[in-house]
């Protein structure tokens, strides 16, 4: 797992987040109705004076090609990730909280940095 750089955590109202026009080159992952993980550093305007927008250094990640992702999820994911592409899902994988960004070709597996070592040990075992 590698440190996931250029991550912003954005906390705002669901309405403000829905109204925000995030640039296309950003990967915007909806962690919660009031929270986004934004990967990329292109500026954007959020219509909320109280929004929290901070750099977040707490994530590790790794891209898996489709076959490796299938293998990983078959052996470590007790729930069925969405079949649509692209899609975002989050839940327990290998007993740890994980976020999945699935595209046609590959899957980005994002793990909180505090569990990165444990995750690598569990999936490589």
């Amino acid at each position, binding site marked *: 797992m590698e440190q996931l750089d250029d991550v912003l955590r954005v906390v705002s109202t669901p309405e403000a987040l829905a109204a925000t026009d995030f640039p296309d080159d950003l990967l915007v992952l909806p962690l919660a109705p009031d929270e986004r993980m934004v990967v990329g550093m292109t500026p954007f305007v959020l219509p909320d004076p109280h929004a929290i927008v901070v750099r977040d250094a707490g994530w590790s990640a790794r891209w898996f090609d489709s076959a490796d992702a299938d293998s990983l999820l078959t052996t*470590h994911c007790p729930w069925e990730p969405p079949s649509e592409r692209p899609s975002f899902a989050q839940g327990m994988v290998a007993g740890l909280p994980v976020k999945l960004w699935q595209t046609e070709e590959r899957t980005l597996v994002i793990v909180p940095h505090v569990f990165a070592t444990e995750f690598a040990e569990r999936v490589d075992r």
Partner: protein
Amino acid sequence: MSGESFEYDGRSVEFEAGDSVLLALQRSGIHPTGGGTLCFGGDCANCVCTVDGVSYVRSCQTEAATVTTVCPHPAGGAPSLPPLDDRPEAPAVEYMTTSVVVIGGGMSGTSAGAAAEAAEERVLVFDANDGAEVLGVYPGPMVVVRTPAAMVHVECERIVVATGAAEIQPVVRGSELAGLYTRNAADVLSRAGIDLGAAAAVTADELGHFEGDDEGRVTAVVRADGSRLQCNSVIVDLGRTPRDALARMAGPGEATVVGQAASVVPTIPNCPSSGVICPCSNVTVGQLDDLYERGFTHMELLKRGSLAGTGTCQGGVCAPYLKSFLADRGGKLQPAFTARPLARQVTLGELAAGSHLPAATRTALDAVHRRLGAQMERIGGWWRPWTYGDTDAEYRAVRERVSIGDVSTLGKVIITGSDVEEALQRLYPTDVATIKPGRSRYVLLLDERGFVFDDGLIAREHDGTFFLTFTSGGASMAEMWIRDWTASWGNDIRILNRTWSMGAINVTGPLARELLADLGLIDPPSFMGHTVATVAGVECKVFRLGFTGELSFELHHDADRSEELWDALTEAGAAYDLAPHGIDALFRLRLEKGHILVGQDTDYDSTPHRIQHGWAVNLNKPHDFIGRHAVERTAKIPVNRKLVGFEADKPFAFEGATAWRGDDYAGYLTSVAWSPALGKAVALGWLERLVDDFPDTVIVEGVEARVVPPHFYDPEGTRARA
């Protein structure tokens, strides 16, 4: 013979391609359990043995070619556990989803599977004879299957049970002999070319009992009419009963039973008048009679009372006889007892496949601590360095020079919004309005009953945002607490838990200011102040605190800069003889200051007054806050026990040691340490009010302890405020 073999009880047993272990043993004239009717259907426990170190394996459903060593179970006893140093690898687990799971690959199962596929449903078929044993059906439904490759957990929409029917086993005198076969077993042996010798065949109506020789082999069958047939083996045909246990594990409407499992009318055998009715648990008819007389008159009760049906075959042999036993006495046929997973024996590894222990979180400095040789311990859900090898030296570094400690584990939350101050006023018992920008304050978190469940800091930023800290391990609970309450109050707030993404290093000791100045912190905050500054090129939120009792600066920063910051502090700190300190030293340092650890020094019902933290509750503020009414009410009640300091001239025995005055229980110690700075033992602990008052001295494990205020070291706080 194929020339291939496995080892059985020290001898070589050859097998043919496709043989099961049991079939190979039978070719060599071996009965793996010594006796009992063989069914070759996986329905009984008469062929179980230890296969490659795993006990209770049904040899009739184990392919011989996959096996190296087979051992019989010891006669009359349980097989021994495998040695600890011979622990097999944990089995893999595979998670699958499908529309239909078909259990049983016979004609009806295959047909059902084909029909489902024709309807464009996704279908998985599992058959024990192909090495895929279904172990249980769980809510969902989820089907758990043991395969040679992995434990397979399948979530599905529906289940088709096509498991066929089991043959009734004889429960008569002599049914423990070798040489007895069900009709299916005789067919299997015949197809394999195994000669049963002079074989007699009996039906249910004909069977009386069996006779055998001194070696436990059958020599004759005695018919119900008294006639006697000399033989080498007996083929029993006593009827059949549906194998529907897996279907009965499923929830209503989840499973469809097809084929013989649905169509066979269960045979209710004649109730035996004596002998063993459940071979697995060695339950006799006499024992059942005794239980029946005592009121155990239903299947479930009889099962629990006798343990019949709870053994290896899970009622495969005895369940029909339990029915006939009760029908004989009650005149009514009762339904089968509840079926629950597991249907087969599993190893602990198989049972745990896919399960994980809760993981302890690691700070961004975890690898650094390990490189430094720290003894790592799990504390508050985190891996933390207990000591780097010399706690006394770590302690002295803090008290005499300068030290660094990893406090990244502290809960860290940002909260803002137009209602943020109102929300915090209701969440905390302090007057938040009086915390100025750039200042912070120690705070308690109270629950509705006024009990302390966490503590930490509130820091007000210049932009109206607040930064909150909590105990290590307390952040998640605190975040939920804040979210729940502010949502129910309808507050306009934003909240972000930054515990996992921010590191924090405590730079503490009388030379801390000099060290940080060397690294660029020219204008450090005053006591309980905070600021944003660059330290060694790393942007930090700097808090001036005093948990250790010395001059202390907590440097909060992005977690991916932690190693860089730690290394810079270590390098620059060499000029000050810096040494890092672990949790062992930290706990001793904070105890000398009388700083509590919530959860260790507090109890489930600790009010601010009981822990002598009434000063942290502002009842004069004009806001209601969580726990206010309880604090006001309990403040009027005399305190019956309180958290106090103890000191003694000799070390205290251990945390948790009880305190006594004479024969009266007077409390217990929650934190103990020997204070090098003070030359005496210090402790926090609970003191009970005795008949007259709180005692001034107590005895703890033979040591006289004086009750004192808990601020042992630098009670004026001049060192931390320096």
